[in-house]
């Protein structure tokens, strides 16, 4: 059987399959469907220093080949998260990557400091959520602000730091380079693409937030392209995501240059997806007599 182990910033993953933040809670809900022990890691929903109520409803809408969401990062805050969600995740043999969100730099730093004292494996910094009025994407759309927040977080973080990048920029490689230059250990992409849906009968927006982040198979080609571009631009590892629906899709991201891949919105369509990605990647490697997954990472130049 092929080797599927990968390493990101000194953290070993049994396989390259993780979850996309916000689509998998803290693993509790989907543990009814999949064995979390089989996953390379669980990336949690974004957590802030205090509880956030999120946006008004409707928060989700279906669109062709995907969906829009404007949840607005509803979360219980770091206290409950550490007591409940991290305690739950500890029971599994999988890497725990905590997604961190904030309205201001000090919000992010407060969460990072709290996480420093836990035994999580990595943190992912959300500078790309398009659905909140303050923070998040505001830090992720200019190279100098990406550099600045990465630098400040990196200077206090005691865990490897992944910067999650937004596709809603002119040139994502500038953000990737800024993150790398400021000391990020890895980058993850793509977050959702800002979209809109109008109800023509009601002459109004479907989402209460007017805009929402688009995800699902319809955005996959954009995500593959951006992963490829970033892989050419930086040396740090990339976690690739955007519309992954099966093992073949995951292989495509790996070949584009991602070291790991995340299952996102398609978890909602196929709650067994994460586990099927692990199986699908193994099957592809075996069928093609590839001994080590590293042989296909970034193999397309």
């Amino acid at each position, binding site marked *: 059987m092929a080797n599927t182990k990968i390493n990101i910033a000194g953290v070993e993953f049994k396989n390259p399959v993780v979850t996309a933040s916000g*689509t998998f809670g803290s693993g509790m809900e*989907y543990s009814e469907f999949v064995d979390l022990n089989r996953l390379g890691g669980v990336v949690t929903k974004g957590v802030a220093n205090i509880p*956030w109520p999120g946006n008004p409803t409707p928060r989700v809408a279906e669109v062709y080949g995907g969906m829009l969401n404007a949840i607005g990062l509803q979360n219980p805050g770091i206290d409950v998260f550490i007591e409940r969600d991290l305690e739950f995740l500890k029971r599994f043999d999988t890497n725990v990557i905590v997604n961190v969100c904030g309205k201001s730099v000090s919000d992010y730093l407060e969460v990072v400091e709290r996480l420093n004292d836990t035994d999580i494996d990595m943190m992912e910094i959300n500078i790309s959520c398009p659905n909140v009025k303050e923070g998040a994407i505001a830090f992720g759309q200019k190279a100098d602000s990406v550099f600045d927040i990465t630098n400040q977080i990196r200077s206090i973080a005691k865990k490897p730091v992944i910067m999650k990048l937004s596709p809603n920029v002119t040139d994502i490689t500038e953000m990737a380079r800024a993150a790398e230059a400021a000391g990020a250990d890895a980058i993850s992409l793509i977050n959702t693409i800002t979209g809109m849906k109008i109800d023509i009968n009601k002459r109004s927006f479907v989402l209460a937030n007017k805009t929402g982040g688009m995800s699902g198979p319809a955005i996959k080609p954009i995500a593959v392209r951006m992963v490829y571009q970033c892989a050419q631009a930086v040396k740090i590892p990339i976690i690739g995501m955007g519309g992954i629906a099966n093992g073949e899709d995951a292989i495509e991201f790996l070949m584009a240059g991602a070291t790991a891949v995340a299952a996102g919105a398609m978890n909602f369509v196929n709650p067994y997806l994460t586990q099927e990605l692990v199986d699908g990647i193994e099957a592809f490697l075996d069928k093609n007599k590839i001994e080590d997954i590293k042989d296909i990472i970034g193999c397309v130049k």
Partner: protein
Amino acid sequence: MKKKTVGFVTRSEEISVDIFSLWIETELAKDAKPGQFVGIFTNDRSALLPRPISICEVNKDKSALRLVYRIAGKGTREFSHLQAGRRVSLLGVLGNGFPCEEAEDKCAVLMGGGIGVPPILELAKVLSGNGGVNKPIAKEVICVIGYRDAQTFLLEELQQYAKVLVATEDGSIGTKGNVIDALNENKLNPDIIYACGPMPMLRGIKNWAEPRQIPAFISLEERMACGVGACLGCVCTTSKKDSHSHVNNARICTDGPVFDSREVII
């Protein structure tokens, strides 16, 4: 245990204008309770998310669920073309369901409006002990059902299990007006209310029941994505801190869809 599974259509028919009834043989039936729902998937790869549809009837002997739905978009339009023998992918069983035990030895009034009527049928069946075949849970079961006009559905079936009062907006059958008008006109004194229907109706029931200190369990609706409590797409405002995020936003798909009216702000 929730699962995604394949079911087999055994019967599909239009029972009123744009209202369809679908019987599906599925293992999910064995755990299904009134007020719960399933997600049904389309075969259209452009329309990916499961469609949440409430359970109208459960037949445990045949391991089958009945779903009654209105054509509301391309997903439900596709379902309307399903024929016996076809396979459908289902996610379930979802949601908490109506708390039937609360009706023990009480006069229960079950209120349904429009496409909120279907879950009331299984509830009436359970609370009445299958129309008196088994020992009933409630002392008395009365249904108050609202339709727009004379194009009713499920009415005769409800009458097998309970006394049924009807309200129609145009007055063509029963009380002219809504279900609250019918409740008042018939001077009903429920000990407990269960309801499913459009938001203005649920709001009316909440405002009617609470000053009278009558517990009302209402089934809410919202646009959903995952259906299992992970995405936080389908929340409703709650009067107390919710159990998941502690921000007064409960998940309709998992903490609900049925809530004590006093718990939610609608």
